[in-house]
């Protein structure tokens, strides 16, 4: 699998490259800036881009912007964002096209490389992975109506929902919670019914549905879109 890595910190970039190579990934390019990332993505069309949100030249969200720009040119280009912090707004922007093949993780998650490699494979295969912190924030917020709906879930269903939103497959959830895969699919059917969502067997469709639901909840918290200056 060919991967492009964009990370401005030399040590971290080299560490990532070493880790990926050790796991049998091919590094198509490793770059340290947003323009470099865009060029590399358009030139090599890799199977996955691992991108630090904050990159030169402005050291703000250049990485995210470059990745989204590339994704516009190459629809469905799998992108895994890494960052020192997670923001719901960035998650929303990443998920906006509903096409899957995206991931958003804290950089610390790289520490557990087995999991990290799982995530890479999921995203590259068109799946969606969200950092547990994003999911916690999504579940912890919101309108009274939504809060009520979520409170209808049992504790176990809530755990399943969390893991589902992080992008895990049924079998991964089953392993994690020490229950059978059948029990997981039973819980997930129940969750979908309680949240008024259309159930789906496709893991990725399911994750996207759950995330879209959590994010698009008609909350009292919408920002009026700013008129372009």
């Amino acid at each position: 699998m060919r991967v492009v890595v964009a990370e401005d910190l030399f040590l971290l970039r080299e560490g990532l490259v070493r880790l990926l190579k050790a796991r049998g990934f091919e590094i198509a390019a490793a770059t340290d800036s947003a323009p470099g990332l865009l060029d590399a993505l358009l030139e090599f069309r890799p199977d996955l881009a691992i991108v630090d949100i904050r990159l030169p030249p402005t050291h703000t969200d250049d990485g995210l912007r470059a990745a989204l720009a590339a994704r516009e040119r190459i629809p469905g280009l799998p992108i895994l964002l890494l960052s020192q912090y997670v923001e719901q707004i960035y998650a929303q922007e990443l998920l906006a096209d509903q096409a899957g093949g995206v991931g958003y993780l804290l950089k610390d998650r790289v520490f557990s490389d087995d999991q990290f490699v799982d995530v890479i494979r999921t995203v590259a295969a068109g799946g969606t992975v969200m950092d547990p912190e994003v999911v916690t924030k999504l579940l912890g917020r919101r309108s009274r109506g939504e809060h009520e709906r979520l409170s209808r879930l049992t504790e176990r269903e809530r755990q399943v929902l969390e893991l589902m939103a992080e992008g895990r497959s049924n079998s991964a959830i089953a392993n994690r919670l020490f229950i059978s895969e059948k029990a997981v699919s039973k819980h997930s059917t129940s969750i979908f019914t309680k949240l008024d969502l259309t159930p789906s067997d496709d893991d990725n469709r399911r994750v996207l549905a759950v995330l879209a639901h959590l994010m698009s909840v008609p909350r009292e918290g919408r920002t009026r879109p700013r008129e372009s200056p």
Partner: protein
Amino acid sequence: MWPFPAGVTPWPAGVLAALTAVCAALAFRAELARDRPARTARPAGRIGWPVVAGLVGTAAYGSVPALLAALHNSAVPPGYVVTMPDLEPGGLLPAALLTAGLLATALLTSAPAPRRWVLPVVAAVTGELLEATYWLTHSAAVSGRTPLNVLVGGVSVPVIAALAGAALLWPATGRPARLAGADAPRSARWALLLPAVVVMTGDLFGLDLWQSPPPGIGIGPSVAGHLVGLVLLAAVVAGLARWPRAAADLAALGLVGIGAYDVAQSGFGQYVVVHKIGSPQGSAPSLPKGLAHHASVLGGIQGAVVLALGLWLLTLTVLPDARRLLGREPDPALTRRVRELTETRADAVSSAAAELRRIERDLHDGAQGRLVAIGMNLRVAEEMIHSSPHEAAALVVEARVASSAALEELRGLIRGMHPPMLADRGLGEAVRALALDLPLPCETEIDLPERLAAPLESACYFAVAEVVTNAVRHASAHGLQIRMAQAGGLLRIEVVDDGVGGADPAQGTGLAGVERRLAAFDGILAVSSPSGGPTIVVMEVPCG
């Protein structure tokens, strides 16, 4: 030619008109200047009973010859007119106004602003009533007084009363106080003199708005004059509310003008004059010698008193500004600004230092400590790696967990120093992200066309964060609204919650801290938080 009484000596009138115009222009210019200095507190304290008593006496004394002259008018044959600047019956009105204004100034210094307006308004109405009563009782005897004049005089009473009502309601909204700043009440007190000055000035230039026309001219001009008078009064009321300081300046200048004119006229011995108008019938009326002399002396005295009062007010109103304009005196506005800046700079420096100490402590107790522990663990693991690899592996895992915790702490610390979203996308998005992370529903309405200066963004962000945190922690709110908009060089932020209310910037350090934080940028904070809610916090900061 009517309405200008022919008896007015032209040159003093011209000089005074020019003086008044120049001073009025200066006064309004000074009033419109930004950040106009506050006047000293002296005048309000000094005006007292002696002045009031003197003026009441003068007004009363001056009214006697006025009545005498008016009575004498009945013997004036058609074609002649007797004039006397400002001691005509109309003189009663300014005298009443002046007295009432001064009484209000002296007696009601502690009354809230709207109430202080009652007296001059009552005085205006009283003056009108006096006027109307005078016409009613003398209309038959005085030549040229027609029932229509009386009607006009009578109608004006309810009109003035209505104006008075409007004047009473308007200040209650607090607008005048806000427009004139903290010193508004003091200025407004001086402004109370203005109605008297306007009417007296009108008299001075023959525009006695209640004067009847000479025979043969008809009542049209009189009615017109009356309407002009009402417009002038309305303008006065508006002027009082909007430009109390300019009004005070004008009051002083007007008093000087009228006083000087009175003195001049009396000096020329022309205080009471008989004029021919049109084709006179019969012989000119002979004025009682005593009346002319008496009126001249009294007019002179009254003029001198008014002049003295005007000059005294001049030193309190116009002259300080003039001295400042000439650079003879340090500008109090600049002095105050320097003091403000010194204070807010000290605040800013000390809060920055406190912040650095907090960060140092957090780093020392948190991440730094963990890194030491990680280093030690790794060192031990390094030694044990061959002898007991399992234990070494456990230590390495421990080190990794500790590094995650250290990162977590650093993230929290960085968020507290400068939230990444603020750095990435600016104030609007950072506040939106803040709202998204709240455990309550929070509506945001943000309209910021461009990014602001970084220090300002940061100050505003933390101000909002503090206010929002307060609402979440203490208000038991169910929902929040944050509105941000930039208009006219001012960033306005509103945070509204539907909680229990009772937030007080004077208690607790939270809101006071926000106020200090914003003060460094000349921003202000206003809180409305009645018990039972809702709480509305408004912050305004100049930007751009």
